[in-house]
């Protein structure tokens, strides 16, 4: 008998432990499920943590309304397969209610997810929101704790984080505050794909190579949709592309790729020269744009 775990098994054991901590320590947790690859792994980890029982929390999607249609189909199907409750709150609705305010000329709705999420947390009195963020995604995330406290305004204070020592998480909160928990903190993009491969998890088709109309903008291929207006000089091309990360369709760049299997994707990432967030226009605005959004209460 070999008493050693592979790195994927060790990461899995840690993530299951974190999910069970949330279930044990919070009254009203929720798991944020977007249908993206990270949250797909989270659902499998939740199955591993709690089956044969049902999940001790509902799933929730903050829907920008600017979606790849494939993603929404997938999201609903996966929640139904699992027999778990799915809550959807939309940016559209939050704008109508005056909770979220688009600034003139702002086409992406990623920023508007923040007030929508905070309103949903308040509506359901959630005390902990489980997210799929990873520390390898971005520099501000690299410094965030696994259990990350948000004040009454949903804000993250990077200078005043609780030390996380051993596996002893301090999950105590005061009324009005809530916690964000990130079970995939120590996973990398490649770990996620290796896990999808090992667990044979279904993923939305847009992660695989497909023929799509795209337009070149700010150094990346943006998908053509109703939400994109061509600027002078831009022309529509039809290419074999796939997405590496999924956000608001108006700012999610596609990469040219022939990858049609998870194995192909793993090989592609292993050789990749650009980080996955490099295909997100919203992160490119400034050196600290993720930090700024996190401070305001972004995932």
């Amino acid at each position, binding site marked *: 008998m070999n008493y*050693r775990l592979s790195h994927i098994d060790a990461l899995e054991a840690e993530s299951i432990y974190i999910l069970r901590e949330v279930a044990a320590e919070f009254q009203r947790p929720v798991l944020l499920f977007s249908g993206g690859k990270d949250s797909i792994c989270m659902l499998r980890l939740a199955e*591993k943590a709690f089956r*044969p*029982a049902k999940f001790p929390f509902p799933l929730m999607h903050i829907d920008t309304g600017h979606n790849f249609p494939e993603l929404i189909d997938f999201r609903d199907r996966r929640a139904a397969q699992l027999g778990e409750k799915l809550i959807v709150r939309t940016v559209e609705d939050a704008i109508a209610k005056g909770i979220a305010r688009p600034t003139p000329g702002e086409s992406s709705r990623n920023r508007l997810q923040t007030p929508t999420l905070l309103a949903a947390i308040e509506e359901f009195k959630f005390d902990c929101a489980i997210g799929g963020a990873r520390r390898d995604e971005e520099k501000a995330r690299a*410094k965030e704790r696994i259990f990350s406290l948000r004040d009454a305004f949903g804000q993250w204070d990077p200078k005043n984080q609780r030390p996380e*020592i051993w596996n*002893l998480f301090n999950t105590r909160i005061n009324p009005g505050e809530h916690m964000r928990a990130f079970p995939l903190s120590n996973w990398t993009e490649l770990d996620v794909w290796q896990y999808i491969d090992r667990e044979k998890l279904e993923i939305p088709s847009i992660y695989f190579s497909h023929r799509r109309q795209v337009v070149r903008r700010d150094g990346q291929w943006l998908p053509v949709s109703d939400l994109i207006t061509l600027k002078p000089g831009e022309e529509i091309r039809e290419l074999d592309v796939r997405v590496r990360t999924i956000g608001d369709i108006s700012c999610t760049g596609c990469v040219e790729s022939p990858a049609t299997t998870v194995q192909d994707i793993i090989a592609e990432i*292993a050789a990749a020269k650009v980080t996955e967030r490099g295909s997100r226009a919203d992160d490119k605005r400034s*050196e600290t744009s993720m930090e700024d959004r996190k401070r305001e209460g972004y995932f």
Partner: protein
Amino acid sequence: MFTHALNEKSELLRFSTSGSVDDGKSTLIGRLLYDTKLIFEDTLEALQRSADITGEGSINLANLTDGLRAEREQGITIDVAYRYFATPNRKFIVADTPGHIQYTRNMITGASTANLSIILVDARQGVVEQTRRHAYIASMLRIPHLVVCINKMDLVGFSEEVFKRIREDFEQFATRLHIRDIAFIPVSALLGDNIVEHSKNMPWYPGAPLLRHLEEVYIGADLDLSDPRFPVQYVVRPRDDRYHDFRGLAGQIAGGVFKVGDAVKALPSGKTSRIVAIHTYDGPVEQAFNPMSVQLLLADDLDISRGDMLVRPDNLPYVGTDFEARICWMSEEALMPNRKYAIRHTTRMTRCIVREIKSRFDFGTLLPQRPAPQLALNDIGRIALKTMVPLCFDPYERNRYTGSFILIDEATNATVAAGMIQEPPKSVPGTDEAEYII
């Protein structure tokens, strides 16, 4: 040179780095990431942009790790940052801990789960108080492997004499530490000497460069497989006709191996039963070991809940409300005796009172100071505690997970201390055990 690890059987190695201000820690990690080709083009582009803005001209490798706005503005590192890289056989999790403000607190945060710690020493400065402090903390945390990187060798002419003198200084004081394995590597993080490739500037150094050392250091014996310990974390109860009697005691094994058929004792109640199945989502397994997350099913329906511990009847931890511990104090407000705190130990949360501060450790003399009226921020000291309900614990030196705890201020909810439980004295009551350095 290296692509990412593609080997699913690769092992995980967690290491922490610490050093004083300006000894090149961020540069060292930047160098490891850069040389293992894990810096991507868009990250490099962003770095080049920021180098242009700050007028530094060339890329500053330290900027790869200094992520927050205040850090870039002040050129310092505020908080523990985690980095990831991989070689074909190992995946590495790096906890990069800053060396200036809050260093003790940050170092403990970063190093508490580490298999290995890298301490940087500036070749021009040699062993300084900060070096001793870091080594002491690594020893206190029982990190099995230590690597002393003597950095900036380029600034001392790659001198073997300088390297040897620093190594001897360090070894002299390290005889008083509890670290099994110490390696010394002369490096230049800035130039890449002895990071990935063997340095041509230091042919006198016969050992492995840093990355090869990290890849090859043997960590198989780091896990405790001898004393079975299972803190119950959560009880899985399906409330479903198909699983009417299912009661899965869920948790992560904190020590040893549990097998189907094993007799187990539940603590603190002392009731015994037998493991009838070890449930995982992927099907039942015959045995499970540290650090797997599983569900244990018992033959008897004992009253067991979160905070209890399952052990083997012939291998018991201590069970009690009174013990002594070494703690690191992490709050601006000093610790005074007789204060009450919430205490989190394994999966148990209860309350405790600090009965006495026994001593405060002096990093200058490396000796405990008595009396110690209080412990201030970043102080390390020994205290006597009394808990409201009994805890099931092992001395920290035997098990990092059943021997550790945190204290929480109940008014602010801040984590104010990290604690390591000491072996209770076996001698005649009234005689104080000799205090050893760690």
